[in-house]
C-alpha cells in the first residue's frame, strides 16, 4: 500500500529555511508572499492490505522516527 506522510513543524516554532526562501521570493519581486514554511513529505510503500493496520503502523513510525514530537506534527494519507 502506498502511503504519503507529511511532517510539519508547528507554527510557533521558527523555520529559518522558510524565512530565507520568503526573503528570496521578495527579492524576486514576489512581495505578496507573507509566509513560507518548508515541510517534509515521505512516500512509503508498506506491506499489508488492512488500511487500519497500515495506518497504525505508520503512526508508530512517525512517533518513533519520522517526526520529532518536540517540534513536529504529522499527517498520514493512504493512497489508492
Amino acid at each position, binding site marked *: 500500500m502506498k502511503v504519503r506522510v507529511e511532517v510539519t513543524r508547528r507554527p510557533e516554532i521558527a523555520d*529559518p529555511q522558510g524565512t530565507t526562501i520568503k526573503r528570496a521570493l521578495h527579492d524576486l519581486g514576489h512581495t505578496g508572499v507573507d509566509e513560507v514554511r518548508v515541510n517534509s513529505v515521505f512516500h512509503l510503500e508498506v506491506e499489508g492490505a488492512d488500511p487500519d493496520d497500515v495506518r497504525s503502523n505508520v503512526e508508530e513510525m512517525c512517533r518513533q*522516527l*519520522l517526526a520529532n514530537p518536540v517540534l513536529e506534527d504529522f499527517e498520514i494519507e493512504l493512497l489508492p
Partner: protein
Amino acid sequence: MTTAVVVFPGTNCEHDVVTAITQLGGSARLVWHRETDLDGYDSVVLPGGFAHGDALRTGAIARFSPIMEPVARFAEEGKPVIGICNGFQVLCEAGLLPGALIANRDLSFICRFIDVEVTDTATVLTNKAEPGQRLRIPLNSYEGNWVSPDGEGRVVAKYVDDPNGSTDRAAAVANEAGNVVGIMPHPERATDALLGSTDGDVFLRSFLSSLVPV
C-alpha cells in the same frame, strides 16, 4: 575511572575529546555505537560530527544505536553524560535533554571562536567555572539553534552575542539533575594555546572532577 567516548558512523571529534581528556590527566577510550554495555566506564561523552550523515534530522538515527540504551541508563542513574555539538543533538533526539536543535537563524554554518558566559555552575560540565565566567571556545555548527517549546531545560551557558537564534542564547543546556549536559560549541578544541584558547579546559576539568569511582 574511564570515560566512554562514543563513535557513531560519521562522528569526527572523538580523537580530539580523548586527547583533551588525557591531557588533563583523565582516561578516555573510544566505544563503537554497536556496543550494548558500558561496563567499566563511569561517564560518557557523545562527541561532535555527523552521526549517520545527519540523515532525516541531526541525531534522529543515532538515538537508536544500541549504545544509547546504556547511555540512557547512565543518565537515569545520575552518572555524567555530556554531548558536544552533534552529541548535544543526539541527547535531545533521545529525550535525555529537553528541546531540539534546528537550523541556525541565518542558515549559515558558523565556524568561529565565540564567547559564552556560564550561568549555572551546578552541573557536571560547569562545576569548576565561576558564575558569570566568560569563556572563548569554537562554535562549528549549522543546526545549533536550540528551541524548547515547553520552556523546559536549564540553560547553563549562554552566548554573549546571539549567533544563531538559540532560545535564551543557550549554548549549553542541562537536564533537571545537572548530570546530563549538551553544549553546542567545542570545549575540546580549546585545550591548547596552539589552538588559540585553553578555555575549554574549564568545562572538561569540571567534567573530570564530577567523576566518582564506579
